[in-house]
């Protein structure tokens, strides 16, 4: 199977005996060895583990045992996930001194229980305080569509590894946009589920109030396959909801009939480059919607997410800032130090506003089922770029790529980022649904993909490989 096979195709071939899991794993490991030097997505390759898992799958099949929905599917994880035997870097220099993790993160265990094969850990922005994918310790993640450009972050290696055809699925984290931003800049599908839907157990945190985990993939179906395998309560994550598993895969083919879809106006139209607005327009047209809704106080929601992130992030790292300040990425360090000095009253007010804003947005979902908004204001910037001109005003790039993602994750809404293959670089659009309605966002994504309105483009350098 080639680099662009979907998870569904791989699992079907392994289950049916047309391909062995070992051959699939070896091919993925070979692609990583061949391609990663150009995109710097991986910080660790778990070769022995992957081959042992693949051999076990092939042996199970030979014994006539049924294999899971992800049988033989290679995947990789942002290096803030615990992987037994590896130190959990979270993109930092400091964590390299940590003892190796003794157990896998829950989501890794669940994907492997469905037959998936972990092949490695992925580059990320330090401690996830990042939208660029750049990392001073490991070097920047590079965008497979143009290696002089950013992947977006902080799940930068996830974007590079999946867009480059190294793995069909990667797991990332999203506190303010860190799945949706690399999905947009690398031309991928990304799912940030409802806050509390997927367990975060045994992953390195950033902002407990806002942290989510989820998959990136090259198709809607692959997102749903991974998502379904990872659902379910986990007592090891106090935030993980006590909800029964609600499979999304069986819903994908239902289409968009009966769904009320609107476009976010106001805040979500301001500051965007032409490509971002063009991408939303293209999707709105394909979905035959002209209905515009305003999310009240979206700018304030973004501000509140910013404040909570600064204060909780600083609190998490306070001791390391006291004792190891020189070992941080200076850009991250200076943001965290500023966050440590914020008055507590501002953080409390931000949390009060969060509840108020959630209630206001909930009223919109009485009238619509999904809302479309840009994922990023622009396509992938050049690596090293520091400033971004939004609405004619030069702003620091690092915090502002998440302009449109922050007001959404702030209240935990489920989002599928879908790739619109504009030339020369792709860009993403957010399909935002009501809490716990990932199925709605995935249905819309699938309909758009079936109609070829959205698709994950193959990088020119590896188009036919």
């Amino acid at each position, binding site marked *: 199977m080639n680099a662009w096979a979907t998870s569904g195709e791989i699992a079907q071939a392994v289950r049916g005996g047309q391909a062995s899991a070992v051959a699939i794993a070896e091919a993925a490991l070979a692609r990583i060895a061949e391609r990663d030097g150009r995109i710097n997505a991986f910080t660790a390759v778990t070769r022995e583990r992957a081959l042992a898992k693949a051999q076990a799958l092939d042996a199970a099949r030979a014994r006539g045992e049924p294999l899971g929905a992800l049988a033989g599917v290679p995947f990789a994880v942002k290096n803030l996930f615990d992987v037994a035997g590896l130190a959990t870097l979270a993109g930092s220099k400091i964590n390299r001194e940590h003892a190796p993790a003794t157990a896998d993160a829950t989501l890794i265990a669940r994907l492997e229980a469905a037959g998936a094969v972990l092949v490695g850990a992925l580059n990320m922005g330090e401690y996830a305080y990042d939208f660029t994918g750049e990392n001073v310790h490991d070097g920047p993640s590079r965008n497979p569509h143009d290696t002089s450009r950013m992947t977006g972050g902080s799940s930068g290696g996830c974007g590079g590894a999946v867009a480059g055809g190294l793995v069909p699925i990667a797991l990332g984290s999203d506190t303010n946009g860190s799945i949706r931003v690399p999905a947009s800049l690398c031309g991928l599908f990304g799912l940030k589920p*409802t*806050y*509390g839907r997927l367990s975060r157990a045994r992953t390195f945190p950033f902002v407990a*109030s806002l942290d989510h985990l989820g998959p990136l993939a090259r198709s809607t179906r692959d997102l749903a396959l991974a998502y379904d395998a990872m659902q379910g309560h986990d007592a090891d994550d106090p*935030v993980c*909801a006590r909800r029964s598993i609600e499979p999304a895969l069986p819903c994908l083919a239902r289409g968009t009939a009966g769904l009320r879809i609107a476009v976010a106006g106001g805040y979500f139209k301001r500051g965007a480059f032409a490509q971002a607005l063009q991408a939303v327009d293209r999707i709105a047209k394909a979905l035959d919607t002209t209905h515009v809704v305003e999310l009240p*106080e979206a*700018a*304030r929601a*973004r*501000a*509140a997410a*910013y*404040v909570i992130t*600064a204060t909780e992030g600083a609190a998490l790292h*306070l001791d390391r*800032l*006291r004792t190891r*300040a020189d070992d941080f990425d*200076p*850009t991250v*360090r*200076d*943001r965290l*130090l*500023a*966050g*440590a*000095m*914020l*008055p507590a*009253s*501002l*953080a*409390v*007010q*931000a*949390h*009060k*506003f*969060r*509840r*108020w804003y*959630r209630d206001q947005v909930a009223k919109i979902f009485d009238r619509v089922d999904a809302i479309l908004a840009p994922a990023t204001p622009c396509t992938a910037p050049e690596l090293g770029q520091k400033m971004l001109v939004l609405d004619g005003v030069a702003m620091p790039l690092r*915090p502002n790529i998440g302009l449109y993602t922050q007001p959404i994750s702030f*209240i*935990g*809404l489920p989002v599928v980022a879908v790739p619109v293959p504009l030339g020369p670089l792709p860009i993403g659009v957010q399909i935002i649904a009501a*809490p*716990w309605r990932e199925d709605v966002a995935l249905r819309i994504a699938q309909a758009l993909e079936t109609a070829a309105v959205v698709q994950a483009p193959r990088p020119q350098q590896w188009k036919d490989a």
Partner: protein
Amino acid sequence: MDQSLDQYIELAAKALDLPIEPDWLPAIKANLEVTLRLGKEVASLALPDAAEPACVFEA
């Protein structure tokens, strides 16, 4: 404001036992200015005294 923020950073760093090198100050100050401005923007929306924070949040 400019000078008072310099003083605030110096005093807060002392109070919190945070070692800060002089050449870090401009970036810390720039970040603090932005975050304080955004914090004030949030706080400027009047909410009732009974408004509950969403520290443990359920969507």
